[in-house]
């Protein structure tokens, strides 16, 4: 079978692109919920803010693990 096309370079970049989808959606949902909650109940904004950051940090950890492991397993 003749070789028609070839991809060169690091597949880690493709892997990280795929890995970033989930955390991207997750972080979006968190801030969307915060905006909606604050629009419905403006007084609650101070109450919910720390939890927004905790949730954001936990979800974002997945994307950042992708950065770290991309380099670890790059070889």
């Amino acid at each position, binding site marked *: 079978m003749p070789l028609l096309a070839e991809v060169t370079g690091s597949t880690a970049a493709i892997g990280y692109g795929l890995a970033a989808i989930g955390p991207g959606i997750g972080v979006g949902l968190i801030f969307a919920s915060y905006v909606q909650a604050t629009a419905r109940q403006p007084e609650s904004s101070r109450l919910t803010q*720390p939890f927004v*950051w*905790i949730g*954001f*940090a936990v979800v974002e*950890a997945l994307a950042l*693990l992708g950065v*770290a492991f991309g*380099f670890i397993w790059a070889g």
Partner: protein
Amino acid sequence: MSTSLAAEIPWPPSVEDFYLPPIVDGTNPWFTKVTLLVWVAVAALIIFFLVTYRDPKLVPTKRQWIAESIYGFVRNNVARDLIGHDGVRFAPYLTTLFCFVLLTNLFGIIPGIQMSPNSHIAFPAILAVISWVLFNAVGIRQHGFAKYMKNSLIPPAPWFILPLLVPIEFISTFVFRPFTLAVRLFANMFAGHMILLVFTLGGFVMLNSNAWLAPVSLVSWLMAVALTFLEALVIVLQAYVFTVLTASYVQGALAEEH
């Protein structure tokens, strides 16, 4: 000039860019810019808070106001809001943690320094271990070892699901918490430094490549400047997140019920 410069530019940026040479050639391979920056940060924080609070006035001076605002912010918005009234006794540690992480992160974007000690996993790892010891010690002292383990490991669930839940709780509380604390801070600083390297060095690479791409290097450098401001946001956010998560773990350890 262009050929000699092109040969010097390490492209693409890699993990090797984070291993700096020792400051004094030949001696002490561990004494790098990173080591120096950590000591500078420690010294700067100690001196700043000693000087600003040496002679406190009823009407605060500008520096005293800055120090009091930082402490007040962490005490009221982090310690008291998250842990409750009891949390004020953790405010000194949380403030120290916040200031140290913030300052060491800031070294990552200050022109001329542009290297954050937190982009080496060792420093976030030690900070995470301290937080881990702190919340476990607080929980054990509050409840006693057996009750603390019961509180943190056994969620209120039907008995038949417990064999599944207990290992998950164990791993998430005692393994993943310090691990993610360390990796989150490290990866943010690492990725931030990498992005700045890509746009700064990329500018030089394009400048040296050909006449058509050379003007585009200006765009690359402008991007580097813009991303430095984005990085400033990330730096403050990560310092805040590290403090908030430590506070929330302490709160979880202090809580009566699961």
